[in-house]
């Protein structure tokens, strides 16, 4: 393993200064970063371990009705916070559908947002990858790419962002609070991850040293609690990344959709907010026909990047199903198989 310095900052300010140095990288739980280092994909000179920073592990209800989630809150703690899960059920369901119980216990909110793609060619240092080595080429483009992007991709990169968590967060207009060299700022989560374009190596809107300190959900996000679901189709029942997923959230009043939120996972280099689909749902009755129209709109711009045309049709069907599930109402308990098409299978006891 490449030798590296390990630094444990005492304050956020110290952390930012340390991480702004070339070759430095934040270390949270390390469930992604350490794997990348073992594989020689990431070779940082210095790890800035943020897990001991104070004050970043709180879930705070804000006076305005929003919620602020510290960057170090574990995926499991957040999903199992009863009040949080009740207010943002699709977020909790998405978290619980990700990885395994052990990984969720370790993984942090900040790390989940900034986890890297699962493109196999990115991981395989013997392959060419524009993300890993700018300008080297993209071996996924004509390679084994059944799980790659169908939206927002470019000839330079067809990778997807793997996070489940980000999908409902983007749907609910989450905001990321960042501490950087020039102090505190915030951006919409939808703007955090960039589409590849000509610079797939630039994955986020982050500058060197930028630290996620919290993720905030605005007051309006709570308004979808009664009709919010996450649905994730996988190649096995659990412990697998999404082939395609969707978060759907509705506000239904007098038999009509007042407000709709929809985002797709596993289809692009970011959690894909489907605003055009949301628009067609506003003000109409929650019918399958309406959901099918929304699905059509959501995937209008989709095109296969390889052996993955099926993902477009799958995404349409997932949209219809997720919206139907949301319309049917959030279940009182998160199913034993969260976000699974088999959620309602009796006797499902494993997650």
């Amino acid at each position, binding site marked *: 393993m490449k030798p590296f310095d390990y630094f444990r900052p005492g304050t956020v300010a110290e952390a930012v200064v340390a991480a702004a140095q070339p070759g430095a990288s934040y270390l949270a739980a390390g469930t992604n970063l350490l794997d990348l280092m073992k594989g020689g994909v990431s070779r940082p000179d210095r790890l800035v371990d943020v897990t001991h920073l104070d004050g970043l592990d709180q879930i705070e209800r804000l006076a305005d009705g929003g919620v602020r989630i510290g960057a170090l809150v574990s995926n499991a703690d957040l999903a199992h916070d009863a009040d949080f899960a009740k207010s943002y059920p699709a977020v909790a369901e998405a978290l619980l559908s990700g990885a395994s119980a052990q990984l969720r216990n370790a993984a942090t909110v900040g790390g989940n947002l900034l986890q890297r793609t699962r493109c196999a060619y990115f991981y395989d240092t013997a392959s060419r990858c524009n993300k890993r080595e700018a300008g080297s080429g993209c071996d996924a483009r004509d*390679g084994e790419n059944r799980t790659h992007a169908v939206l927002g991709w470019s000839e330079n990169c067809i990778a997807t962002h793997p996070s489940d968590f980000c999908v409902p967060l983007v749907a609910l207009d989450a905001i990321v609070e960042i501490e950087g060299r020039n102090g505190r700022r915030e951006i919409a989560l939808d703007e955090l991850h960039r589409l590849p374009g000509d610079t797939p190596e630039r994955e986020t809107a982050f500058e060197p040293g930028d630290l996620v300190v919290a993720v905030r959900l605005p007051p309006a996000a709570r308004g979808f609690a009664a009709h919010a679901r996450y649905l994730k189709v996988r190649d096995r029942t659990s412990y697998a990344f999404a082939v395609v997923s969707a978060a759907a959230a509705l506000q239904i009043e007098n038999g009509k959709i007042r407000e709709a939120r929809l985002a797709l996972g596993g289809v692009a280099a970011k959690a894909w907010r489907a605003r055009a689909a949301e628009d067609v749902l506003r003000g109409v009755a929650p019918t399958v026909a309406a959901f099918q129209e929304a699905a059509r709109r959501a995937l209008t711009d989709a095109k296969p990047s390889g052996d993955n045309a099926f993902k477009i049709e799958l995404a349409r069907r997932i949209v219809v199903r997720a919206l139907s599930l949301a319309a049917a109402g959030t279940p009182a308990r998160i199913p034993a198989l969260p976000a699974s098409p088999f959620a309602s*299978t009796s006797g*499902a006891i494993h997650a």
Partner: protein
Amino acid sequence: MPELNLTSAPAHLRHGSNIGQPLTRRDGVLKVKGQATYAADNHPPGMLYAVMAVAGISRGRVTSLDVAAAKRHPGVVDVMTSDHKPELAIDPEIKTNPFVFRMEVLQSNEVRYANQPIAVVIAETLEAATEGAALLAPRYETLPALVGLDAGDSFVPPVVGVGNPTENHRGDVEAGLASAEKQIDAIYETPPQYHNAMEPHAIVASWDGDKLSVDMPTQGLMLSLARIAELFGIAHDKIHIRSPFLGGGFGSKGLMAGPQTLGIMAAKLIGKPVKLVVRREQMYGPVGHRAPTRQRLRIGADGEGRLTALDHHARTVSSTFDDFYEPAADASHTLYAAPAIRTSHDAVRVNTGTPLFMRAPGEATGSIALESAIDEMAWACGIDPLAFRLKNYAEVEPITGKPFSSKALRACYEQGAARFGWAKRPLQPRQMRDDAGLLVGWGMGTATFPALMFQAEARAVLRRDGSGAMEIGAHDMGQGAWTALAQIAADELGLDIDSVEFKAGSSDLPDAGIAGGSAHTATAGAAIHNAGAAVIAKLADLATNDERSPLFAAGNAGVIARDGRLIRRDDESRGESYSEILARAGLAEVEARGTGAPNPAAMEEYAMHAHGAVFAEVKVDPELGQVRVTRMVGAFAAGRIVNPRMVQSQLFGGMIWGLSFALHEEAITDRRSGRIMNANLGEYHIPVNADVPPLDVITVEEHDPHVNALGIKGVGEIGITGSAGAVANAVWHATGVRVRRFPIRIEELLTQI
């Protein structure tokens, strides 16, 4: 070898016999406490760490390695390359017998497959060796890789599997097909799969002059020992291999592989003990795998649903430099009573590590294709799949015409079907839904695996203190040899299991043969049986020839061994303890050896196979195409069951492998580079708990007087066969969509559902 502290058996109900008792694993507590020493847990003083650098291309030549950069790295001691390595006594490319790999141990700079070892970095720490390997930054001259089942001209290999004829036939297949009322002609594809044992291949090697000490997981202690001896030119008695526990093998630890040889070479080069552990992604190359297949099945049936012909052809691949051919078509030899059967194979050479036997080699790949095709034919004939199989039940082995040594398959069908509730199955597909609207389907498959025997020897001892010992270089891969073989030993010695010192897992013990072919319990068990009988006979001789003994003149045949005593068969009140006999004879102990081997006469006369029937229920989302198995019942007849608990876990494990075969496992190979793109346990999918439904295993009573003295058939592999097809057939029954490419993926169902 340090004494293993095996748990003494908890008090169990013993109806006169240890065999048949569901003892828990005697090594269980050690394992739970982390005290079972696996190979990589050994750290002899002065030990250094070796890490392999492996090829990033699959065909070409290494043109440069930055050895200087690696050596400059702090902690790196040496870098072994094709220019700097100890010489071997023989060329590692020479195949001295079918049970050796032609291996890559840095004999040249040629690259023949991705992940082939190209250098070994030796360092004071694992971290330094790992970084040293990264710093080698190899450069290559790359040639176009040969990838996939159509990579080049096909040829007919001389043999498939381990010495099976490439082609077999009985009857006139073409005539049978021509006369058929119904015909199925279908092509099935199975992907490359990797063994993925939890424990990677590892070795700790120490040289002391020309003596070599090795800790290494192996399924064949003596095969490995012989291979090391020939490669390094040293006598067998200079080598000691310890392999008390394997973290799984599934065939991949059957042959001495290149990486382990490199560990021994590194220790020799550096003159210190060396540990080399193969990294997970490096397992996808030099240690074997299951080759992909493309199988064409042509089946004919008459108007009554009776088979008229069965033609099974399998295409597979081997490496460019060695030969192992997945004998997939052979699965059609034994199950269905077609009057005409033909099986054949061909192959192409590709840039891959050499394939090898992987749990049910041939049987697993062949079974999913055969069971799918039989299901297709049953549907074509409009007959229930179980009724169809019964109609074509083989009373004698179809390919040879030999009678079976025993075959309780009918009982398996009956008991499995009853437990599953098969009678309620609608004939048409896509008829069942659950409350949530998911499609439900039921499928079945027949399981079969040959009852094999290899050669083994055991040494038995009875001691004056009333205890006994049984020594055999047997292998515990997790299946429970420490327990099941000790149970046999206890019975044969007429002792309670706690009074028997059972020794295994070391090359200084008698040769137990290879732990493969589901034959280990049968083979080692037979040796233990004979060694036990021989030592008891010696003891009986002492007693029956001694007029001071109550057994005097009873004659060998007239004495039985029970609870540490010999007693007269005709008068159980007359007898004496082993201790008394030995004490009177002035002996500390008596010992004897026994061997286990196949009986050629019986093999000539009988076809010997285990059988089973597997029933599966799946649910499929009607729009999204995701599949989940919700119920599985397997009924198996495998002769005598030595330890029901361990047999159940073997069968569970096999059924889970079958499920995995049908729905999950696939090494995704880049079509251009030949590299495996999912060489890790995150992306190479095997079922997780949520994929595995409640499993129900029935062991059907079967008495086989011919297979071996103990009547054991073996259960290690059969569970995969039948199961994979049952799941695939259930997917068809749920959806009406017949997927012939495995594993069944969402996209195949999505477009047709």
